[in-house]
């Protein structure tokens, strides 16, 4: 592996020696596929026949009218099979796994979204599948665990560390260094050692390719700004990548949690709490202490609750090509609520972060300007969190009654 995936100092492949050969193989398979003109077609074909790509670019007429500024368009990754952009990445990696002749996939998951997507891909391709999930997440994201198990995946609760996403990643690596001959690790976001940031971006770039074509067809002009939430950075990189050379402002929105001053957040690029470090195989901004120990993070959106961030985004932060903002938990619930009410769309809590920032800025812009928000996933998966945020008494009664039935 000569190109080690560096973006002006961010990235790299800090991998245990035992995995070097595996990464060499992966890089080769990925480069081969990328060079094969038929591969992208095959990828597009499976995404259009198994998921429903191209996903629509929906004009949000009511939101546009309400804010009285820029025209707001929404890229509908929520309509993907399994309900989020995660499908793009897993199906792409699935095709690579087939090329490499491996028979087993593993993945980490936080919210469970990437776990469900990977288990789905594994069912479809006939792979064995093991999903690592922090014990805390297993408890709070039970519905996704249920579906992963139905899909035939083994879900292993990770009981070490902070028992959330980053610990699941570590555990997946531990599995991988043991079973790399048979196994591919389907990393779920544009993080981790090279080639993952580049490769995940490559598969997710289908979002931006479509969105750019769609907006030009619909409006004949490029958008003024594009908004995406940033967890690991895959949906953001996915929609940003095709606008990179355009005069389009790109805005990434991180989890502001309970506020950037509270230390209860997951803002790596928009807060002063992060610094450059190396962990989980790559160099980027991490929320870490002065010794380099990773900190606990917080977000209402499990999928954004992560200490690291794509090295490509760290690079784009430094160059100023992408602007980063943070949205606080309560703002996120408000934006979600408002979007449901106004447009009949239910963005995931993760995606709702992007909506928060777009809503803050829409009215500053003129009616000729266009905003695109990436709705990375659908929010009905978040009902347990959202209902709690609303303190919905009907929901609580329902759950209590259900529980009584089980206790009886």
């Amino acid at each position: 592996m000569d190109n080690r995936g560096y973006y002006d100092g961010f990235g790299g492949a800090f991998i245990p020696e035992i995995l070097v050969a595996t990464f060499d193989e992966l890089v080769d398979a990925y480069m081969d596929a990328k060079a094969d003109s038929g591969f992208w077609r095959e990828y597009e074909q499976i995404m259009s026949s198994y998921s429903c790509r191209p996903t629509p670019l929906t004009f949000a007429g009511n939101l546009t009218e309400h804010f009285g500024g820029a025209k707001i368009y929404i890229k509908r990754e929520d309509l993907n099979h399994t309900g989020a952009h995660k499908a793009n990445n897993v199906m792409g990696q699935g095709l690579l796994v087939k090329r490499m002749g491996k028979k087993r996939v593993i993945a980490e998951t936080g919210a469970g979204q990437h776990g469900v997507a990977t288990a789905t891909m594994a069912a479809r391709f006939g792979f064995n599948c093991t999903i690592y999930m922090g014990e805390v997440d297993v408890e709070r994201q039970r519905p996704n665990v249920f579906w992963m198990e139905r899909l035939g995946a083994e879900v292993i609760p990770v009981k070490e560390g902070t028992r959330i996403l980053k610990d699941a990643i570590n555990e997946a690596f531990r599995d991988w260094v043991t079973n790399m001959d048979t196994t591919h690790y389907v990393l779920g976001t544009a993080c981790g050692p090279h080639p993952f940031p580049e490769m995940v971006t490559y598969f997710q770039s289908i979002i931006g390719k479509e969105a750019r074509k769609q907006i030009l067809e619909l409006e004949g002009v490029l958008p003024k700004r594009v908004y995406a939430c940033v967890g690991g950075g895959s949906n953001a990189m996915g929609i940003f990548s095709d606008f990179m050379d355009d005069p389009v402002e790109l805005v990434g929105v991180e989890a502001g949690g309970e506020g950037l001053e509270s230390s209860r957040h997951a803002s790596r690029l928009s807060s002063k709490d992060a610094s450059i470090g190396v962990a989980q195989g790559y160099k980027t901004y991490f929320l870490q202490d002065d010794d380099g120990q990773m900190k606990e993070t917080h977000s209402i959106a499990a999928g954004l609750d992560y200490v690291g961030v794509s090295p490509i985004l760290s690079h784009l932060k430094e160059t100023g090509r992408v602007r980063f903002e943070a949205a606080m938990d309560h703002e996120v619930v408000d934006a979600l609520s408002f979007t449901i009410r106004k447009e009949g769309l239910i963005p995931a809590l993760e995606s709702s972060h992007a909506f928060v920032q777009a809503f803050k800025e829409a009215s500053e812009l003129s009616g000729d300007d266009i905003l695109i928000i990436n709705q990375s996933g659908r929010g009905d998966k978040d009902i347990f969190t959202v209902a709690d945020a609303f303190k919905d008494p009907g929901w609580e009664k329902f759950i209590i009654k259900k529980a009584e039935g089980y206790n009886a």
Partner: protein
Amino acid sequence: MLKSYLREQRTKKDILLMTHIVLGYPSFKESFRIVEEMVEAGVDIMELQIPFSEPIADGAVILKANQRSLAAGSTVEKCIAFAEKAIQTFNIPFLFMSYYNILFKYGVRQFAEVMAETGLKGAIVPDLPPEEGAEYIEAMADHKLAPIFIFTPTTSMERMKKIAGYADGFIYCVARRGVTGADTEFSLEFQKYLERCRSATDLPLALGFGVKEKSDIDFLRGKVDIAVVGTQTIRIVEKEGVDAVGGFIRGLRS
């Protein structure tokens, strides 16, 4: 220098013993007593692991030790102070073992400097392949410290030779796929792997991952220079207490 020291020791013993502990686990005080027990039992060289929150190459036992140590308040500073005291007290070479972020955050050059000042002989950084380690390699060389690199069963001969070019002190040969703490089958295939390691470098070879009893050491004798006992001593401490360590170590080579 570490390499010549090890060569010299090998003229006295048919196999050397390197042990590993996680600093601050169960506590720094007990860590020190464990070192004491080990040195007295004849250990030839020791790895002192500076705990890290994301030790991806380590298995469950060492992982937990890292976390407990951090939870109890371990810091890099305390680990350096520990090493300083150990080095002043005991007359064997000590290495630091940690993940790259610990060095990176400290500043790689500063880290090498403080290692040298403290009297450490080298370091093992399992998530730093030589390709990512230019600054580290240079800094270690500047301070005459040994950067220990790793061979594994999946490492090609060509790559072994390349790695050996960056390494100093000895080569850490990982016995098998996987993380620390699992069993290793010392098979014929394994023997071939060691032969490949041997032919790739003339640095001393250490073999780690899964070495836990006398029969393993017996098997390794004549094939490698150093047997590395890691996880097993932590298990002994956890099950039988610090006092059991000396006996365990002595039993390995008797």
